């Protein structure tokens, strides 16, 4: 079901944690709420769930105003960052909890509860753990049980607060893919919080970038990557080289094939893979020197130093596929020509 937030503000004392948030999440979408630490992601999620009250603004779920409704009546599945499994209950009882606390007339019989819990545990591929206690599970297993528990009450909306935050890198990667597939299967409208841009891009169909309690941009992952709305988004969403015309980068950029635009701004953001490299033939006038490189799996990241008296000391990063780099046959200290394919200009 769709979620609509209109003009949500929240202050802690004099500190504005959320500042006039307007957000619409269409039905069935999996949206990532992305932003640096302390930008208000958890606060926003808690307000949607009803665990926290906004000072201002309304929360609508499926066009119904839920602003003044209690947490327990909102029918929202919430997966906490640190799982918050009931430590004195088995995995089975944890998942069954939401069904057992229903009012008597809605409460399913024990048989139906058992069937449903086992089905959910199978969905998260952990049925064999049903009689364990939470402290006998690994982090990734706990996370999946927390998800199964939230799904048991058939929530209209699923909210996940940094679901993979406490897990190590390889488990995270597995679970990301798994969450994406699960969402395809269930199609429940979901918002998940993360401060990892790669995770947001990989899992979500829509990304909302939050900073200092404000929404900086909302769009599909490719939208946000290819057309960042401002310098913050551009920097946050992936690695970028920053060139400032006021700091005498103009000539250098011209050599690199990037003419300053007429009015778009004075600061150019260039993604590493938008910089093409060639071994320089004109030894003296070459715009850059290769300082070092690192292997990033399929890609190589090259660390370049700008040549010329007016350049600032900051290194320039470029990326290219492994085999292409081998063909160039470059060594440390080689002079290189470079060509910038495109840039985003900001004021």
């Amino acid at each position, binding site marked *: 079901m769709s979620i609509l937030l209109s003009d949500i503000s929240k202050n802690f004392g004099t500190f504005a944690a959320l500042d006039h948030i307007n957000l619409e999440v269409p039905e069935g979408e999996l949206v990532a709420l992305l932003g640096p630490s302390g930008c208000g992601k958890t606060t926003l999620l808690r307000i949607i769930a009803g665990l926290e009250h906004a000072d201002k603004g309304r929360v609508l779920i499926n066009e119904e105003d839920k602003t003044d409704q209690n947490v*327990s009546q909102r029918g929202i599945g919430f997966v906490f960052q640190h799982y918050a499994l*009931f430590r*004195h209950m088995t995995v089975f009882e944890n998942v069954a909890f939401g069904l057992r606390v229903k009012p008597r007339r809605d409460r399913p019989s024990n048989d139906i509860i058992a069937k449903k819990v086992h089905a959910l545990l199978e969905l998260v591929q952990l049925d064999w753990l049903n009689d364990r206690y939470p402290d006998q599970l690994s982090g990734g297993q706990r996370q999946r049980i927390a998800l199964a528990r939230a799904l048991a009450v058939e929530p209209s909306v699923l909210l996940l607060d940094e679901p993979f935050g406490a897990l190590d890198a390889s488990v995270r990667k597995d679970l990301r893919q798994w969450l994406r597939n699960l969402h395809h299967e269930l199609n429940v409208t979901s918002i998940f919080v993360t401060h990892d841009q790669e995770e947001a891009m990989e899992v979500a169909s829509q990304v909302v970038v939050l900073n200092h309690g404000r929404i900086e941009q909302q769009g599909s992952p490719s939208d946000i990557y290819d057309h960042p709305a401002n310098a913050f988004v551009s920097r946050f969403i992936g690695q970028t080289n920053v060139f400032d015309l006021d700091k005498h980068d103009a000539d250098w950029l011209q050599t690199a094939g990037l003419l300053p635009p007429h009015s778009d701004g004075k600061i150019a953001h260039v993604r590493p893979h938008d910089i093409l490299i060639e071994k320089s033939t004109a030894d003296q006038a070459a715009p850059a020197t290769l300082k070092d490189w690192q292997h990033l799996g399929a890609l190589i990241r090259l660390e370049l130093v700008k040549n010329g008296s007016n350049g600032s000391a900051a290194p320039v990063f470029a990326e290219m596929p492994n085999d292409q780099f081998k063909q160039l046959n470059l060594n440390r200290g080689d002079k290189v020509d470079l060509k910038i394919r495109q840039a985003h200009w900001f004021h």
Partner: protein
Amino acid sequence: MNAVTQPINPAKLVARQQLALQDPDWVRWTLIAIAIGFISLFICLPLGLVIFQAFSKGVAAYWSALSQDDTIAAINLTLLTALVTVPLNTVFGVTAAWAITRFDFKGKSLLTTLIDLPFSVSPVISGFIFVLLFGAEGWFGEWLIVHDIKIIFAVPGIILATLFITFPFVARQLIPLMQEMGNQEEEAALSLGASGWQTFWAVTIPNIKWALLYGVLLCNARAMGEFGAVSVVSGHIRGLTNTLPLHVEVNYNDYDVVGAFASASILAGLAIVTLILKTALEWKQGNR
């Protein structure tokens, strides 16, 4: 040296580290002897003496001392006091711990400090507070006389004083535990549709039950054993306002050694049972 080329034996390494932490034998044995000697002299010896004195004139004298009307009245009053104060302080303690760990409000740190007040004030002073409030010369004294309500030198006074003295036990046990646990599990329960009441019984209580029992146990031991505060408000009326500890003193002052020590042996027995249960609970808590 060939020691350098030999692989290091990890077991030996551990043994050496343990050795490094250990003092010479004579220091160890002296310290242990002092500790044991101290405990024997100041705890085991008096306890043994209580039992010895209680039975000094034989089992029959012991039983007859215990079956005196005044002794039975004292036992009953002690039980009544515990029966009223322990449940009340359990409810108060849980409420206070809940309020302090789950809500933010003005005066929270003041409340936390006040909970400890009965621990930091001498019990005699605590008793006097009630005399000042409810005694014949006290603030409410006149009003109480007019309405013919007796608090001081009567059972209500004893219960009030005990209630005050034993208030911190449950709350003190729960507050650190509930602070450390946080309220995430409770929030999770609420988000799954549980009511506040269901959350309390199904999530909060199971998580705090051992600490709660431990607090109740300590609270009960003190409620039955309190002397100072109760002594001030009781008036020492035989068969009416004497709790067991007071009864022991009265008997002793009357040179009724067997009577005094027979009653004392009940309190000593209570202390031993409490200790055993306490150890069991600590073991249980440690194993969770």
